[in-house]
């Protein structure tokens, strides 16, 4: 047991989707020693497809509550529909507008606020915990992993991300490991915020496209908003070398660390089809570049825990 040893959390995010986050994380998993992996892209988790985890612990996740109308007690007064701000209460009325009108709560639209249940004059609305998904602790060929599955059309992905992260840190502590590598989700919203708050470092994997450039800046703003140091890696850089240069110069202007470039290479898809990371899938220039990115991020962390501003 290495008690009290600081655990470093690296988060790989991108802003734009499909820039190669999960492929990079899978390679990091293969290169890391003594790390726990956390797949925090809970609504489209893919890391398990490469790491082939063996689940050793499985937990239900309840991130919120949900309302349900008891038809036996409901008098169809319509108060719930009037108060709901999420358009979740529907009226199933017969076409002739007769007495059989019935209200129903759409579980997909329900935000779980409880207003309808609290103010129902007939106490006809049940308001209780909803199961929104599951999370797992697994063993993989590259070490322990925590991952999750959000239920179909469920919400509370941010809370599930926080649950996965907390479980990964706890696992690292139990096993005396000092690094948690987090695969994040695209965007800048709730799950991304939950995956980066309090982390040690954000690695932004972007691509040399106008979309990649635009989204990289928004996600860099988000990291700054939460005071987290960030580094940038340009994946598929040779698709547009000019935009790759622009992204790196924008990153420098913002004081972000540069983690390097990785070329556009069919080896990445080929490796994925063989359920491998690119660094495991034979020798390729692209694999060497991913190793360099890994080394730069490591060095930046070891240098001060913070990448050096230029």
């Amino acid at each position, binding site marked *: 047991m290495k008690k009290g040893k600081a655990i470093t959390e690296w988060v790989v995010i991108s802003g734009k989707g499909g820039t190669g986050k999960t492929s990079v994380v899978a390679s990091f998993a293969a290169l890391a020693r003594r790390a726990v992996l956390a797949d925090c892209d809970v609504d489209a988790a893919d890391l398990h*497809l490469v790491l082939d985890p063996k689940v050793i612990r499985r937990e239900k996740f309840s991130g919120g509550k949900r309302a349900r109308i008891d038809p036996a007690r409901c008098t169809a007064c319509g108060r719930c529909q009037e108060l709901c701000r999420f358009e979740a209460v529907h009226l199933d009325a017969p076409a002739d507008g007769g007495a059989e009108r019935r209200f129903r709560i759409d579980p997909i639209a329900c935000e779980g606020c409880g207003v309808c249940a609290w103010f129902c004059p007939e106490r006809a609305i049940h308001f209780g915990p909803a199961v929104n998904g599951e999370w797992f602790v697994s063993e993989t060929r590259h070490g322990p992993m925590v991952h999750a599955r959000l239920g179909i059309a469920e919400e509370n992905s941010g809370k599930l991300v926080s649950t996965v992260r907390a479980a990964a840190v706890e696992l690292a502590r139990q096993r005396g490991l000092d690094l948690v590598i987090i695969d994040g989700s695209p965007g800048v919203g709730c799950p991304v915020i939950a995956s980066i708050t309090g982390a040690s470092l954000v690695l932004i994997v972007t691509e040399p496209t106008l979309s990649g450039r635009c989204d990289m800046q*928004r996600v860099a703003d988000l990291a700054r908003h939460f005071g987290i140091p960030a580094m940038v890696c340009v994946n598929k850089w040779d698709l547009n070398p000019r935009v790759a240069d622009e992204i790196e110069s924008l990153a420098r202007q913002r004081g972000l660390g540069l983690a390097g470039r990785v070329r556009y290479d069919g080896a990445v898809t080929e490796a*994925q089809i063989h359920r491998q990371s690119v660094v495991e899938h034979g020798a390729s220039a692209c694999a060497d570049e991913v190793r360099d990115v890994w080394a730069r991020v490591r060095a930046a962390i070891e240098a001060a825990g913070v990448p050096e501003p230029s």
Partner: protein
Amino acid sequence: MAAGRDKGKEETMIIAIASGKGGTGKTTVAANLARVRGAVTLLDCDVEEPNVHLFLKGTPDGEPQEVSILVPEVDEARCDGCGECVRFCEYKALAVLDKRVLVFKDMCHGCGGCARVCPQNAISEKPNRIGILTSARVGDITLVQGRLDVGVAMAPPLIRAVKALIPAQGDAILDAPPGTSCPMVATLREADFVVLVTEPTPFGLHDLRLAVAVVRELDIPCGVVINRAGSGDDSVTAYCRDEKIPLLAEIPDDRRVAEAYSRGELMVDALPEYRAVFEALYSEVKGEEKV
């Protein structure tokens, strides 16, 4: 087809372009479909990372509008610190400390419950900005975009504001955010048809399955577009066949397509040979709905 618009006979249709996995080509499909069809409204519902405007550059139509949700404001003169609002709030957006109520507006979902339960009537609601809404004219296309402020967690209220601008007439194309949770669901609700864009890889297939499950839960007809066809394996094609999901179009794996995209050029402008793919896709979608 202006001739078909006689007597308002042409059915209007809300077509959502979604994917599960990010970066499969939703924006590409949405923008190119709009371009080949013309006279449509394209609504960028990927409010966390809106990108359609990089491909369809037009002139702004009016000033950007701020979009807000209502968050509580506590009148300290009236509040006696009883904590009823804190007990009510499911989102931990309120806390009471030394008989004073603190509001964490970033946690608030804007349900309005706290203001209603307060026994002292000490809580009112005030708008809190979450993002902006812009409109532009790009030739005969109307482009509506929502852009979430950085640091704001909740996209769905802004997505609902974008969708409020779906016109009563003419087709609307919605560019959905990636994933399968609230923002994607908020975009897809009330759509008439969902085009799921994927790529022929294990990640593409896995996330397509999740997206199909959501679309089925919402009970909306859907079809699949395979982007970068030929770059991976044929498991997506087999899946569509087994699940009886129509394969609407395939966009080949062509480095020129990726390069045009990187420059912010529309595929049908940069590589006119692809026009037919999107024309056929649009007809396919319009036909599929009636089945």
